[in-house]
């Protein structure tokens, strides 16, 4: 064999092995996390770990319900803010904005999606937290003194701040996916509706959204899955002290990813501590993958219809 062919064969083999390595990473990570989480699962019941709110590592209590609820609470707030904003933004971009302007705005939105989370976190600390502390919380808790606006946490580092920062982080992703979905509705379909005397808004409501609905749901699911896993920005603004059950949007929240980032590597002498944290990581991984599969599944299916 001459060197030319030899190099070609080697190059192919190397590329192939890297490709396999990358593709197997997800399984590898999942497998290792499972191995590491096994010790605690051997001692304690999984459901009990998930449902108990008692997190006292020193006494061997590793209930994660507080963190799971914290994740859900912050995510819920984020979705509540981001979904309407994203839907309306993407509708404006696809239905009203002239093509020339769109060529400029689309990269800007993609750019927003690519900004490092820590920047959003810092921005959250210097802008969102004071805003929530000085304006939003006094205003809301005075005018609406009931669930979920009552709290004794006056720092501004709370679930709402986390939710706002998260909402801003997941919106570009959702706008981008929704834009694709809306773009897939044909021009003729809109033209047909308009030709029947519908206004633009009626066309959007009855035709465009109807056609794009599954895709929009998928975009929201992808946004949620991103929000679940987001760590650093939330960690910086959400307060991160343990709550057993979220009672207010102004209470602190301690989501799972923040728990992992904050505690893994410390206090490792406590028995089962690292195992429990890695179990949390495994749960996060499974949930995120699941949501991604569902989201892309819906997108794929609606594209093929």
């Amino acid at each position: 064999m001459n060197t030319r062919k030899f190099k070609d064969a080697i190059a192919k083999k190397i590329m192939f092995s890297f490709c396999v390595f990358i593709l197997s990473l997800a399984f590898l990570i999942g497998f290792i996390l499972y191995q590491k989480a096994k010790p605690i699962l051997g001692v304690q019941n999984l459901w009990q770990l998930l449902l108990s709110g008692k997190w006292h590592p020193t006494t061997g209590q590793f209930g994660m319900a507080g963190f799971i609820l914290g994740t859900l609470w912050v995510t819920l707030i984020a979705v509540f803010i981001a979904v309407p904003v994203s839907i309306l933004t993407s509708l404006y971009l696809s239905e009203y904005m002239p093509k020339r302007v769109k060529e400029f705005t689309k990269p800007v939105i993609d750019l927003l999606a690519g900004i490092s989370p820590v920047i959003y976190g810092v921005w959250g600390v210097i802008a969102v937290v004071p805003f929530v502390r000085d304006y939003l919380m006094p205003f809301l808790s005075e005018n609406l003194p009931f669930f979920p606006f009552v709290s004794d946490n006056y720092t501004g580092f709370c679930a709402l701040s986390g939710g706002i920062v998260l909402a801003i982080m997941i919106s570009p992703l959702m706008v981008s996916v929704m834009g694709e979905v809306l773009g897939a509705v044909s021009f003729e379909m809109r033209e047909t509706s308009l030709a029947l005397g519908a206004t633009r808004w009626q066309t959007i409501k009855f035709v465009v959204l109807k056609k794009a609905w599954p895709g929009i749901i998928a975009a929201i699911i992808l946004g949620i899955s991103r929000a679940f896993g987001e760590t650093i920005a939330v960690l910086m603004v959400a307060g991160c002290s343990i709550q057993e059950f979220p009672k207010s949007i102004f209470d602190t929240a301690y989501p799972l990813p923040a728990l992992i980032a904050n505690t893994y590597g410390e206090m490792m002498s406590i028995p089962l501590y690292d195992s429990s944290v890695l179990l949390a990581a495994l749960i996060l991984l499974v949930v995120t993958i699941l949501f991604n599969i569902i989201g892309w599944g819906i997108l794929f299916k609606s594209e093929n219809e």
Partner: protein
Amino acid sequence: MKFKTHISIKDLNVWYEKHQVLNNINIDIPDKKITVIIGPSGCGKTTLLKSFNRLIDLQDGVMVSGQVFVDGENIYDEKIEVTHLRKKMGLLSQRPQVLPMSIYDNVAYSPRIHGLKNKKKLDELVEHELNEAGLWNEVKERLSGPASKLSIGQQQRLCLARGLAADPEIILGDEPTSALDPISAEKIEQRFLDLKNKYTIVLVTHNLRQAKRLADYVIFLYLGNIIEYGKADEIFKNPKYSKTKDYLNGKFIEEHKIDKELNLKGTVCPDNFVKTKVALEELEVGQVLRIIIDYEQAVIEVPKTIEYEGHKVLEVKSINRTDWEIIIEKRNDGEI
């Protein structure tokens, strides 16, 4: 020519970007007659048709000058309510465009958006219009089924019923039968003949025999100019201009220059689409691909997806009972 005018066009010019598509158009379209616009591809027939209900406004970079009077009102006046104007005109496009809802909801769409809520009245209206379009007997058992499951011929008649339900005065047809098989096409033609007592009908067609069968008046359009306009029998028997004569004799019936052909008979969706896409990838921008298909659903789906990919569908035509040809011009390279 002496007739009651319904649409009157004065000095109409239309540009797309810098390209002038219509040149100083001046015509009157008669009330309750069938007027047929003929002419080679790309001569502005569709643009002229869509300027009547201002659908051309939706195109990017379009510029219009001149006036179009419908019932004596200039529709390009700023004060005009465009939704009201469009409601006056039912549009049938080349490929039937059913809305993503049930058969019933398709027909009830326009009455509903214009405020009719009474269920009984809607029921009556839907039945009446489906009857008018000659579709009622075929669909009365499955009104709540999705409209997209109908055959193309049925879909086009559904579009007709939906247009009629808006209670229009004018029906515009942009080659409404070209994608249909001969029998479905005949059904639509028959509907037009039945409806012309009640509506003003303006049709664009490529099919000269169809034009002869249907037209009361004929407009011959060439490169954005009206060459000849008059009573159908006069123009067909005795064209005044040599260009019209040539066109009628088939001398310059435009043929698209085909760079590549692809026979996709026997393939289903989305296989045929994927094969089309692969074939397009091998072409240069601006080259033309002709595909032949015999899978009915593809007649709507393939052009739609191809256009979504950014290419231009030049023509979709039924060539015999089972086959269609789709002519596509490659427009973009790779990414949209």
